[in-house]
């Protein structure tokens, strides 16, 4: 299967999954109220996150052009899949080298550009449009956060719940594994894992997942141990519910607030970790971290080239700030200890 078809399918599946989860959450009063409260407290941050998600989603839907849609001079593009975001820009939207925002000449040579005044945020060293690259970074950031969470959340939930609910030897073993993993400095472990697994999107996400699941698993384990002793669990057992049913219907739903809080808090730390990895040369292609890393030396040029760095930084910062704001509100709303306090 071609990569862009796969990407389209995954995007559709994820979107469907998200809708299903939202629909499921709407049926419960607790989640409906929490959602309403979240929208009330953080409308702007939610909108920012949604805008990034929209750009990332549009950048994940791609198709190739049929032969007659592409003009003679764009023959290079035949067979190349372009996403919806790519289609906002002309197909040959590239210059020879640096140009300042909205400039009509190259920065160094002074040659006229092929798209004068069209590069809102300038171009980078090989003439790619900075605004276009920054938009495409949204997808990478969401893949880092999303794919890693898809690894972390089920794993942590499975391990944490089984250790906490079954207890005994299994719990001892799981606790040992968790304390072993937690005792390794996370950045070093991350580096070691990527060095061994190799560089690539999936590998980086797996490595981030391995270093990230322990925290949630610990929380889930402790909470499960508390829930296990509660009376409604005994009541369910007296009524003849099987152990699996008790776990699925009575334990797991009461852990979901932990999962949501952790997901929100994890997301920004994952994206920030990737920036550091990019700088170490083991990040993901096309991420804002890569842009920042490539733009790092441009500040010492004369005249200073600031637009790549600034654009990537602001794109990154706005997403992280919005996610942090949402995460804070989510924690305040869902955490029973702080639920009574104001935001």
């Amino acid at each position: 299967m071609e990569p862009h078809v796969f990407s389209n399918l995954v995007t559709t599946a994820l979107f469907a999954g998200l809708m299903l989860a939202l629909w499921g959450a709407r049926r419960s009063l607790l989640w409906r109220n929490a959602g309403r409260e979240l929208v009330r407290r953080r409308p702007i941050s939610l909108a920012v996150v949604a805008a990034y998600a929209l750009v990332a989603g549009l950048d994940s839907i791609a198709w190739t052009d049929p032969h007659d849609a592409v003009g003679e001079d764009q023959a290079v593009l035949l067979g190349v899949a372009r996403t919806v975001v790519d289609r906002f820009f002309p197909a040959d939207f590239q210059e020879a080298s640096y140009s300042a925002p909205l400039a009509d000449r190259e920065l160094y040579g002074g040659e006229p550009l092929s798209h004068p005044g069209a590069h809102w945020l300038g171009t980078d060293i090989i003439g790619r449009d900075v605004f276009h690259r920054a938009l495409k970074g949204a997808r990478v950031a969401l893949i880092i956060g999303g794919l890693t969470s898809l690894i972390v959340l089920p794993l942590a939930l499975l391990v944490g719940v089984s250790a906490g609910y079954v207890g005994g030897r299994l719990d001892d073993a799981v606790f040992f594994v968790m304390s072993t993993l937690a005792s390794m400095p996370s950045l070093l472990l991350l580096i070691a894992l990527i060095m061994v697994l190799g560089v690539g999107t999936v590998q980086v996400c797996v490595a981030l997942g391995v270093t990230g699941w322990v925290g949630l698993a610990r929380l889930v384990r402790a909470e499960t141990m508390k829930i296990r002793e509660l009376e409604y669990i005994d009541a369910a057992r007296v009524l003849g519910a099987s152990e699996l049913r008790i776990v699925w219907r009575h334990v797991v739903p009461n852990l979901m607030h932990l999962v949501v809080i952790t997901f929100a808090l994890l997301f920004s730390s994952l994206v920030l970790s990737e920036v550091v990895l990019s700088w170490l040369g083991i990040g993901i292609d096309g991420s804002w971290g890569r842009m920042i890393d490539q733009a790092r030396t441009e500040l010492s040029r004369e005249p200073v080239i600031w637009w790549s760095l600034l654009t990537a930084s602001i794109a990154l910062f706005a997403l992280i700030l919005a996610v942090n704001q949402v995460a804070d509100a989510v924690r305040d709303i869902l955490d029973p200890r702080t639920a009574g306090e104001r935001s």
Partner: protein
Amino acid sequence: MIAYTVRRLAYGFATVLGVLTFLFALFFLYATPEDMARRALGEKAPPQALEQWIVNHDYHHPLLWNPDNPGQTLIVDHFRRMLTFDFGRSDADDVLVTRRLRKGVGPSLSLTVPLFVGGLFVSISLALFVATFRETYIDRAGVALCVFAMSVSILLYIIGGQFLIARVLRWFPISGFDPSPEVIGRFLVLPVFVGLAASFGEQVRFYRTVFVEETNRDYVRTARAKGCGDGRVMWHHVLRNAMIPIITRVVLAIPFLFTGSILLESFFAIPGLGSITVDAIHENDFATLRVMVFLGSLLFIVGQIATDICYTLADPRVRLE
């Protein structure tokens, strides 16, 4: 108490063995010596060269089981070397890893200790200040500033700090290091300052939460009823009662003083352990990387044990069973 300490130490040792097993699985079973040789010599290296590399770096013994000589396996070698701190030579340039570590500890500590002490002092003071004015605009502005500061990547603090303070204002050198006492300060001010800026948001917010939780306790009301002012309540009563979470955090941070700050050291060209790690990454030096992960976790485990023992000293309510 003694029984507890012994048990705690035994569990710590078991965790060290767990870490070593994990490292063995990662660096020998998943990435085999052939893989390492291929990474070091390139994909197109002839088989003899790979063979030679493996023998030169002592990776030629069987992995798990040697029927001729049971002691001559890589797993035994790995455990013996790590546990006796005989780390062997680097995969990249055959320098003894231990010698390199010894050289790197000094520069690392000279960066991380001021950063750590300064950070602790600044963030606890700021957090106490903000917590004194909890539920006011000062508090809200402080928390908002913290979230703002947390949302900026540490890379940007470094790049921005170097550009603004070193390049535009020319107050301090952009990077470099010199251990002689007269000039060391000039090189360290900027990295320490940047490190503080990058970490204060998260720290202040954490300590603020701890302090605000404490200020809702009964003893605070009692102290106020006795007529204590804000300053005395916060610095005397609240700070001392909030020691447990503070100690946990502080002691667990100490190990990372030794492993250094990878980013700061490498950007500011400080030849510490963090720089060694970065070089190891670029040179595919698995031997050094392995040692760094092992030492990092060893120090962390020791720190954890120390924390548990510190609890009893800081808080007589904690009884170790």
